[in-house]
């Protein structure tokens, strides 16, 4: 009974550690290993880190707390949480948030497939200094059967874990893999720092260029990196919080997740950048940083393993294992989000998971065979996450931020004072600045001549069309969502199928 939520009969995390480990697993993804090292040096090193810390404090932590509140109070996935927090007319918002995360799930499984493939390359000794890493990358991405096969392996692995549920599945897996992931990152970082010349990499990462703090773009880049990296506003932390123990802390847990996520980024940054600066020229490092996420990890960094002692057989497998674990732990949370919503509509987990895995596999195939399609999806749903974050903040305002603050404060280990309602109310302002900047870039920078073309991978119109389609679909389905989602602890009695839920309307996990 200690592992079940009173009143719902639903499984709950066995300890705070396992919940926080799951939260860290959700937050730490491939972006920590291949995006953070690129952008931190490019945007001012320590100055960028200061901006990241502030972004965590004013955006990520308050939003994660809001998500945790919604998930733990409603004990339902994104759709049910919005229905019960905001009212039956707003279930579509949870559908939008859920679809954005699922849109990422589709192509992120392909990313995890690449990581698994590179791990296999590494343990078979391919990174011995003689391999043309650019040719290897181009060869993989132009061989559809390989990318589809490893995409299938990634989503199937995650499907098996999610199928087993919390206690027999993702809780036990994450309890061990997250400490292992941090141990690997620490080994890689220490090894990199011991290389002669590594200090230039550390300078690139940590020494502040103070003048850049007055550059608005540094702040926008920092907030973007933090929004993508922490998972705040994705609905994933909301989903994990469905399994939170009763009267569990909100504020301290959110702060711990963000702090650990930043630590993973810093360790990965040291491992990658200190190695590159130690073994190559600053020009090579600059080219690596500008090569994009995949270019940095799979082409430039992979090239260096053969040049360091133990690189081929020890450090290359470790790095790609870390990339795989980071990716799969985030993919796990995305698959659970989709499964939770399907389950909330009355389908048992044993049937919901095969559906989620099957749909994710099929919908991920276009990203597996076309890098242009992949880039488009990464762009559309990546920016779409900012909208999801806004919806979570709006939900808190509709519920009443002071009311929510009082309830958060009652269960939090450090005081949730006026700062939290203040930051939630400030959220739309930050959103307008950040979202507006991305819209501006889509028009002015990414596709200045074709921003109106929905088939252009980085155009404004491709975002508007895809978001619009999801909005229309979710809004049209609002009534279905509101009716079909099972009742939770906050569901008003009038909307529950009282006095006895008909067959199929009951939460299949309830005992």
């Amino acid at each position, binding site marked *: 009974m200690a592992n079940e939520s009173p009143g719902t009969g639903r499984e709950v995390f066995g300890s705070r550690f396992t919940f*926080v480990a799951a939260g860290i697993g959700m937050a730490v993804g491939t972006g920590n290993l291949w995006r953070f090292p690129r952008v931190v040096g490019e945007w001012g*090193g*320590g100055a960028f880190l200061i901006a990241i810390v502030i972004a965590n404090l004013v955006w990520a932590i308050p939003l994660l707390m809001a998500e945790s509140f919604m998930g733990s109070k409603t004990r339902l996935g994104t759709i049910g949480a919005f229905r019960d927090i905001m009212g039956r007319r707003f279930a579509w918002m949870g559908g939008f948030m859920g679809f954005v995360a699922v849109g990422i799930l589709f192509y992120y499984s392909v990313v995890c497939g690449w990581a698994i493939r590179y791990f296999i390359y590494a343990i078979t000794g391919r990174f011995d200094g003689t391999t043309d890493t650019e040719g290897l990358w181009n060869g993989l991405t132009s061989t559809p059967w390989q990318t589809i096969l490893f995409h299938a392996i990634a989503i199937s692995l995650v499907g098996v874990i999610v199928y087993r549920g919390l206690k027999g599945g993702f809780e036990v897996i994450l309890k061990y893999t997250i400490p292992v992931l941090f141990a690997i990152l620490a080994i890689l970082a220490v090894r990199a720092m011991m290389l002669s010349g590594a200090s230039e990499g550390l300078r690139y990462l940590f020494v502040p260029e103070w003048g850049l703090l007055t550059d608005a773009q540094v702040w926008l880049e920092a907030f973007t990196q933090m929004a993508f990296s922490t998972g705040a506003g994705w609905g994933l932390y909301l989903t994990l919080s469905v399994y939170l123990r009763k009267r569990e802390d909100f504020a301290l847990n959110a*702060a*711990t997740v963000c702090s650990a996520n930043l*630590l993973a980024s810093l360790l990965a940054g040291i491992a990658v950048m200190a190695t590159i600066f130690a073994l190559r020229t600053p020009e090579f490092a600059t080219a690596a940083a500008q090569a994009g996420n995949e270019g940095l990890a799979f082409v430039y960094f992979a090239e260096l393993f053969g040049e360091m002692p133990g690189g081929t057989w020890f450090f290359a497998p470790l790095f790609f294992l870390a990339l795989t674990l980071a990716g799969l732990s985030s993919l796990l949370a995305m698959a659970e989000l989709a499964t939770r919503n399907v389950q909330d509509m009355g389908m048992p987990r044993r049937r919901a998971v095969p559906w989620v895995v099957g749909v994710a596999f099929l919908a991920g195939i276009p990203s597996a065979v076309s890098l242009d399609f992949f880039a488009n999806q990464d762009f559309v749903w990546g920016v779409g996450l900012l909208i999801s974050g806004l919806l979570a903040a709006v939900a808190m305002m509709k519920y009443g931020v002071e009311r929510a603050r009082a309830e958060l404060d009652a269960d939090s280990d450090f005081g949730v004072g006026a700062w939290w309602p203040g930051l939630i109310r400030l959220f739309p302002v930050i959103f307008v600045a950040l979202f507006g900047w991305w819209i501006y870039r889509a028009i002015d920078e990414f596709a200045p001549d074709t921003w109106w073309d929905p088939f252009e991978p980085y155009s404004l119109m491709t975002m508007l069309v895809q978001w619009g389609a999801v909005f229309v679909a979710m809004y049209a389905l609002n009534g279905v969502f509101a009716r079909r989602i099972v009742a939770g602890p906050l569901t008003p009695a009038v909307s529950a199928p009282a006095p006895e839920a008909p067959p199929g309307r009951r939460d299949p996990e309830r005992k």
Partner: protein
Amino acid sequence: MDVVFWTLVFLGGDILILVLLLFWAVKKDREKATPAR
């Protein structure tokens, strides 16, 4: 020297904060587990 300093500030600072947060969490959990007298 500045490299060592700023590395300690950011990396050391984050590790320190994380350790403190974890210790705080453990302390609070123990307090909650102790029955009120």
